[in-house]
């Protein structure tokens, strides 16, 4: 036995070597496991596939509980490029009924970051969108053969009636801008476009859910993470009850066929919009599914602009429908009383200026002037107000007072309807004329045409209808709206508040009486329904696009108004020719549910008429 004690010390070198290496490893492990968090995220990204679960979108019912808009499932085929493994492309193409070229193009498009800016091989990409249920069924059996592909269920809209497209709106895929503006959205989501779908998006869309699935190294799904304990279940969107009467809407749309213009019907007491037609309209089904893009382009390119909601975006000269409002202002300002009479010698003649009128008795007070739609009366009244410097100091001051009354009556600003894209119309102010004519260089005569709803004055059919509802209510209105109730939610207060213009209630009764007289013995006699007391006012608006626009406002029953209507038909001539018949039919249909036999001929005439042919130079 030998033992070399010098050599024995070498064990310390060996032990030292071991300890140094192990210490290095422990430091490395500390860095990996404790100091650095990123590996946890890497591991989670590997193992967990977060699958969004789309909530069902809120349904829409009309005021009578008819289902108008509902959901249908659609299936998007998604792929995660990183997870795709070689597969039988021919089988794949056959199953999806696409050609190899389409397949290659689809892949190329997907990877093209110009067309698909959010491309990443780690996140789900849309391969084919909106497969039918049959395609889905066929595919589902084979899906396991195509690792990296999966099916994402989506909600598309479906419509029970080919009507009210302008009110309902539709849904579209979100744009990069939408995603930027709202955290809720991610690529491929749908959002409301136009109409109620857009303005009530936050109620309709609900809340997305998430399912956390476990994915193994081969991309196969192994099940749910902790049996779904961390999943978030989707919350359905709120159902909406619209104020529309879908039957009335359809009827009004049918009357407007081959005409360009709008019909707005409001329940005066509540401000609920019963029907809102913009003509020409389109079938909302056109904007569903894979054909949406093509159809949308077709509608955009249509010369009649069906996507333009004339009822609330179109700003028109209100013409004689402006006169009841004029009467209210003149009475309130004390320019006239019910006995004040102005002469009409087939028109208003003042200092070389002449505004034509038609044959009726002269001179005449307010109510008969409304009855006969006398231009001269309102010109004189306007002139007396704007030029009364003793009271207002200047024409400009007087005009400002006049304008403020109109604003109170809902003109010149957006009413605040619960639909996107509302136009504010146009009511000029004194500054406007100062700019055009120079300060103190204009008077009533310069701008006399605004007194009869011509000239610079513009209003939307919704604003005109709202004024009619205000008169029907004898002095107040509620902001018009198309949604009557939201499931489990209190309606926004501003949609229920009464708004009182600064005009005495009694003057409204006087103007209403004048409108009643127009129906019983004036310009709107065609609206004199059997058994229903209708009040109305025609309008015939000159315009630069050809024949006059034909307009009508009316409400009924006279003592307990249930409906206030505005009809506006572009280039259709006298208000009595199209406005009155269509308006009266809508009123009759709504109040009685049918058209009386003796008025059937009017209905037939309206259904069959075509005013598009009168359309002039549209530029």
């Amino acid at each position, binding site marked *: 036995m030998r033992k070399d004690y010098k050599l024995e010390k070498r064990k310390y070198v060996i032990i030292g070597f071991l300890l140094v290496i192990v210490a290095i490893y422990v430091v490395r492990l500390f860095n990996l496991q404790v100091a650095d968090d990123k590996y946890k995220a890497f591991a989670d990204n*590997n193992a967990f596939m977060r699958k969004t679960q789309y909530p069902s979108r809120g349904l829409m019912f009309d005021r009578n509980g008819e289902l108008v808009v509902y959901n249908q499932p659609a299936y998007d085929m998604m792929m995660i490029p990183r997870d795709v493994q070689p597969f039988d492309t021919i089988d794949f193409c056959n199953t999806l009924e696409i050609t190899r070229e389409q397949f290659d193009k689809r892949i190329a498009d997907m990877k093209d970051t110009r067309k698909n800016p959010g491309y990443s091989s780690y996140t789900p990409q849309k391969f084919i969108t909106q497969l039918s249920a049959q395609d889905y069924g066929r595919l589902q059996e084979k899906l396991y053969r195509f690792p990296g592909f999966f099916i994402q269920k989506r909600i598309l809209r479906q419509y029970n009636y080919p009507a009210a497209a302008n009110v309902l709106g539709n849904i579209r895929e979100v744009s990069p801008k939408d995603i930027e503006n709202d955290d809720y959205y991610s690529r491929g989501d749908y959002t409301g476009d136009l109409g109620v779908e857009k303005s009530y998006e936050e109620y309709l869309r609900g809340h997305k859910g998430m399912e956390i699935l476990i994915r193994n190294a081969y991309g196969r799904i192994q099940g749910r993470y902790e049996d779904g304990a961390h999943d978030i279940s989707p919350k359905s969107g709120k159902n909406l009850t619209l104020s529309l009467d879908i039957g009335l809407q359809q009827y009004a749309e049918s009357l407007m066929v081959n005409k360009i213009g709008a019909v707005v019907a409001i329940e005066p007491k509540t401000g609920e919009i019963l029907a809102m037609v913009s003509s020409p309209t389109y079938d909302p089904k056109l904007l569903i599914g894979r054909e949406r893009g093509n159809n949308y382009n077709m509608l955009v390119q249509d010369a009649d602009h069906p996507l333009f909601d004339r009822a609330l975006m179109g700003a028109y000269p209100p013409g004689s429908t402006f006169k009841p409002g004029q009467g209210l202002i003149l009475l309130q300002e004390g320019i006239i009383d019910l006995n004040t009479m102005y002469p009409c010698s087939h028109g208003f003649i003042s200092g070389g200026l002449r505004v034509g009128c038609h044959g009726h008795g002269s001179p005449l007070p307010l109510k008969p002037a409304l009855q006969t739609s006398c231009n001269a009366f309102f010109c004189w009244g306007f002139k007396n107000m704007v030029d009364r410097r003793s009271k207002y100091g200047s024409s400009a001051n007087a005009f400002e007072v006049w304008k403020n009354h109109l604003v109170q009556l809902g003109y010149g600003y957006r009413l605040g309807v619960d639909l996107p894209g509302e136009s504010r119309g146009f009511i000029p102010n004194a500054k406007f004329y100062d700019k055009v004519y120079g300060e103190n260089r204009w008077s009533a005569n310069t701008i006399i045409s605004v007194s009869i709803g011509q000239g610079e004055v513009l209003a939307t059919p919704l604003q005109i209808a709202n004024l009619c509802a205000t008169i029907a209510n004898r002095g107040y209105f509620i902001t018009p709206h198309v949604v009557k109730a939201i499931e489990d939610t209190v309606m926004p207060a501003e949609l229920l508040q009464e708004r009182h213009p600064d005009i005495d209630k009694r003057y409204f009764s006087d103007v209403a009486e004048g409108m009643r007289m127009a129906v019983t013995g004036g310009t709107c006699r065609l609206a004199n329904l059997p058994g229903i007391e209708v009040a109305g006012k025609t309008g015939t608006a000159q315009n630069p696009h050809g024949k006059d626009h034909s307009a009508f406002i009316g409400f009924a029953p006279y003592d307990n108004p249930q409906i206030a209507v505005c009809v506006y038909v572009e280039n259709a001539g006298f208000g009595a020719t199209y406005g009155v018949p269509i308006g009266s039919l809508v009123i009759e249909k709504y109040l009685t549910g049918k058209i009386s036999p003796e008025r059937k001929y009017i209905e037939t005439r309206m259904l069959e008429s075509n005013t598009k042919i009168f359309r002039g130079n549209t530029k």
Partner: protein
Amino acid sequence: MATQNDNTSAFRYVDWITVSIYVILVIAGVVSIYAASYDYDHASIFSFSEFSGKQLRWVGLSFILGFIILLVDYRIFETYAYPMYFLMLILLAVTIVIAPDVKGSRSWLVFGPVSMQPAEFAKTTTALALAKLFSGYNFVLNAKGSNYLRALLIIFVPILLILAQQETGSALAYLALFFVLYREGMSGLVLLAALGAVIIFVVAVKFTETMILGMPSGEFAVMIMTMCAVVCMLAVYCRQYIVARNVLAWFVTAVLATFIADWCGIELPGIYVMIGIIVGACLYILYATLHAPAKRLLLTVAFAIIAVGFLFSVNFVFQNVLQKHQQNRILVALGIKEDPKGAGYNVNQSVIAIGSGGMTGKGFLNGTQTKLKYVPEQHTDFIFCTIGEEEGFMGTTLVLLLYVTLILRIISIAERQPTTFARIYAYCVASYLMFHLMINVGMVIGLCPVIGIPLPFFSYGGSSLWGFTILLFILLRLDASRREHHAY
């Protein structure tokens, strides 16, 4: 001499600390294998159709095997060391011929449903043979060159046979025996040289992007390192302080002059200038041998020449000798190449698995990286991942601590052996374990190239477990009889 009765007394003197650590590691191994191969519709840990169940069977048999070894007369290991060694060499050679090709390697002998890898058992016989050689009468390693030759022969014959089986990892494990040679008197310079070679290799291969003085910065760094080493050797090893000072002054002046020339726009062939500087220093040192003890100064010169020569051969070896996948593994381990889908995939995923464990881990059976098969070979070579992911930093350090304790214990056992045979053998065991631990854990945590060797006692596999069990229990048997040698 001991009587037959003394064999049973082995249990009285067996080192229970080592046995306990062994049992803990083996059981922890089975549990980890169960966790690593756990599937969601998995049966029990005891199911024999699963890895954990199979491993459990191997473990049971290992315990029996260990028990039997403790019953055997300790003298037969020394007596039959050479015959067993040669038998094993024959078996290794036969394996090359008859083994089926498994992923390019011919190292598995298949007997019906059971396969075994002779290379795992050859570790023991090689260790016994080496111990036998050293225990020869008056054998001193440093006494003559032929002793080295014999020792190296014992080590390298199995290495060559196993390399021929295409099992590079297993073959490299035998290099661990150089620790034993060092312990028994081999100059530490050999180990230092090996370390130096590794450093030169890593630096030269890793830093090839930027250029300094017209040569890759890695090569420049090796040159500077060589110069520093020469100065240090002169000062510390040769104790020739004046020579060291002069050489240092020469290096600093010459290198600075080169930089200034380069900065002034004189284009110099940097690499030859650097070689010239070193050669100049060497000539000066050779001159110095005339006045001082020559041997160590000559060694210093030899070192400088070998270092520079090695640097030039690195690129050649790397490009022309190593196979493509070996090059890739090295490049990935050095962080030169990012290849998360190819050569780097295993390491990348295993680092993610370990890193995601955090301080306390995700909990038993909750590891996603391992459960969902993101880490390949997770029940064999990458078993350490499962610990890292599910038991966290606490688990990994505890396991490392267990191994360190085991190895330190074996070294202490080695040093208390009365016979050279037992001491050498014990050092062999400690060296194998050290090497396996360093390479395996280093590979799993991304510090070493991927060399496919198992974590002893832990990794799945009967051959590996039995191989290490036999290795360890022979040591325990020898140790248990250490008191019987008073007769010497």
